[in-house]
């Protein structure tokens, strides 16, 4: 009765062998994105002149253009732009372009997530920091951001999962991640057994996402202890 042309086991193996690359893109862009996002959030909150307006434009652009377009812009456009200044980046691996694009893209989303969490922490905590003689950056590092990250976790989980799924676009510029591998398998079989391949890739993405969900949930539980205030209201 078996009409499948693939061995399920080998298919999974073939796809999973590319999972590390997908995860690498996810983690690398997340790290850079988190750093940039925090920076942008603080710039927006402090309303630092010029930068503040520039960041608003950047966020608007990042959120309102398709990621695929951004990827092409950076992969095809950036080398051309830089070559005008005498900088050649044509031999940089597509993977780096992909990570750069994803980092910028997710930083826009994370900036908004962190900004809302920062506001939720409240002015009170900042004033308390000032009252004991801390500078703004000390207050950020030691009191405000640690609390903001905990508040941001649920929304951040959302964004991270979105990012994981967005990494499929990397194959369009030649990065052989999970999706790239799948396209190769299908190509090698002249388009046969497509359904089977997509079932496998769905399960792999689903499993990875579920794993991320569990991690986020555990983190939320872990950090909850210092936060719920029974005495205040």
């Amino acid at each position, binding site marked *: 009765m078996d009409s499948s042309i693939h061995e399920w086991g080998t298919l999974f193996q073939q796809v999973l062998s590319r999972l590390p690359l997908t995860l690498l893109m996810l983690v690398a862009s997340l790290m850079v994105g988190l750093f940039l996002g925090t920076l942008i959030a603080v710039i927006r909150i402090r309303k630092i002149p010029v930068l503040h307006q520039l960041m608003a434009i950047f966020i608007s652009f990042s959120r309102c253009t398709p990621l695929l377009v951004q990827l092409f812009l950076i992969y095809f456009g950036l080398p051309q732009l830089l070559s005008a200044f005498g900088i050649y980046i044509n031999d940089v691996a597509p993977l780096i372009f992909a990570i750069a694009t994803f980092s910028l893209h997710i930083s826009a989303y994370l900036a908004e997530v962190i900004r809302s969490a920062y506001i939720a922490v409240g002015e009170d905590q900042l004033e308390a920091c000032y009252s004991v003689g*801390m500078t703004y950056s000390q207050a950020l590092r030691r009191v405000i951001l*640690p*609390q903001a990250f905990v508040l941001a976790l649920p929304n951040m989980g959302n964004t991270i999962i979105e990012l994981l799924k967005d990494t499929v676009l990397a194959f369009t510029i030649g990065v052989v991640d999970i999706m790239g591998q799948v396209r190769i398998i299908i190509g090698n079989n002249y388009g046969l057994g497509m359904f089977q391949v997509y079932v496998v890739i769905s399960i792999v993405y689903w499993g990875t996402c579920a794993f991320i969900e569990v991690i986020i949930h555990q983190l939320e539980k872990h950090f909850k202890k210092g936060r719920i205030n029974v*005495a205040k209201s």
Partner: protein
Amino acid sequence: MIKLNGIYKKFKDHEVLKGIDLKVKKGDVLTIIGPSGSGKTTFLRCINFLEKPDHGTIQIGEKLVIDAHKPSKRDILQLRRQTAMVFQNYNLFQNKTVLENITEGLIVSQKKKKSEAIQIAESLLKKVGLSEKRDEFPSSLSGGQQQRVGIARALALNPDVILFDEPTSALDPEMVGEVLTLMKEIAREGITMIIVTHEIDFAREVSNHVVFMEGGHIVEEGTPEEVILHPTKERTKQFLRRLNKEPEFVI
């Protein structure tokens, strides 16, 4: 010694402080009373620049004088390092334990060694009677306990003055007692305090200098004897009468 001169503050078109002058000597316990909206809290917050005054000068100690027109960041930081504040809503660091709440300022802004900071914090926790809560988070404490930690945090910094912003307003009557007792105790130790409060009896008992504010002005100031027991201004009399008035009916 603290000297404030001609403090003005406007929020949009609403003038909250209309030229306040005040002198506080070392060891003074100064209470500021007055109706809600009279600018008491805003004035207190101007003292450590949590609120930036529009005009006026703030002098603390012999050397540090800050002009509201051109305050440097360094001066403001220095001012804040010479003062401490106790807040109406406690404002403990929610992500730090009780002990860390007290050591934080010592380690971060005063650059004390960790072991030294912990020693100071532990002795203060003993003083405010919360040694056994040392490793708990603020969220698991009652309001009164949180406020006692807030006071310990301020005391730990060994500041020139501690500013109290209605420290008992968010507490239920039972907890008010424990906080006021603690405040009386530290007042007796000769620590300079500026207290915004609605607890008139407390003000009379503890302070040596009372200021009555209304509409952004100081209406009357002097010893508790003068201001609370024998006020001369009509507005002060009216305010205190309302507070002491017997209930007109009993249910």
